């Protein structure tokens, strides 16, 4: 099946992102496709490359980046939600006059249309939230 994923919570505070990640891994191992993960609400924080968790803990953004690279998953951070919460790519940082960007590898910033498009194109859209 062709899955799309919506992640509505940030890393660590909520388990939603971990569960979404575990689901994606399991689905791919079973031969399914996860073609897009869309990050909304505080979920956009999963797309920051700045978190520095303790060494014996998982690094959630890095996990997402690696999974996306290995299996060609489109990781999309909602631009409206990202702007509120300070998740910026290079272009956005320049446009907004900020002194740096923080988006993690494999993530891109785009609009909510990408979520709706995923809902139209997928066989199943799964929501991971609180």
């Amino acid at each position, binding site marked *: *099946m062709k899955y799309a994923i*919506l992640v509505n919570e940030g890393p660590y505070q909520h388990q939603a992102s971990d569960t979404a990640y575990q689901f994606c891994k399991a689905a791919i191992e079973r031969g399914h496709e996860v073609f897009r993960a869309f990050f*909304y*609400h505080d979920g956009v924080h999963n797309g920051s490359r700045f978190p520095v968790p303790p060494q014996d803990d998982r690094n959630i953004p890095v996990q997402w980046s690696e999974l996306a690279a290995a299996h060609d998953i489109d990781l999309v951070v909602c631009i409206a939600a990202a702007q509120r919460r300070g998740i910026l790519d290079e272009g956005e940082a320049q446009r907004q006059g900020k002194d740096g960007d923080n988006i993690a590898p494999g993530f891109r910033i785009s609009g909510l249309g990408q*979520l*709706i498009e995923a*809902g*139209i194109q997928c*066989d199943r859209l799964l*929501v991971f939230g609180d």
Partner: protein
Amino acid sequence: MSEPWEEEGPGEIRKFMYVNRKAPYGTIYALESLEVVLIAAAFEQDVSMVFMDDGVFQIKKGQDTGQIGMKNFSPTYRALEGYDVEKLYVEAESLSERGLSEDDLLVPVEVMSRDAIARLMDEQDVILSF
């Protein structure tokens, strides 16, 4: 026999349901959910919204956010009709549990039982819950 998700061709209109379960203030879920609905309207899908649990407070009349420094976005629900979002369902049990009735709501809705909402959910292609 083919599975249901194999029968849908491209360009087919899908049934999208937005399930609103959280109070309008206190968290940003309601506001950002409304942003999704408004953006999604451009995709001309078959859209419905459900208000249940504390989500029924989102469309309560007489909201006044003057003292909390947040924008009162409740008038936007009245604008949904202009976006062809006309199917608004409210769970009867959620209303009565909170001492509310249909007269307390600022938009015309269809009040439905929990069972009826469950059946409606069963008919959807995509359910986004916030």
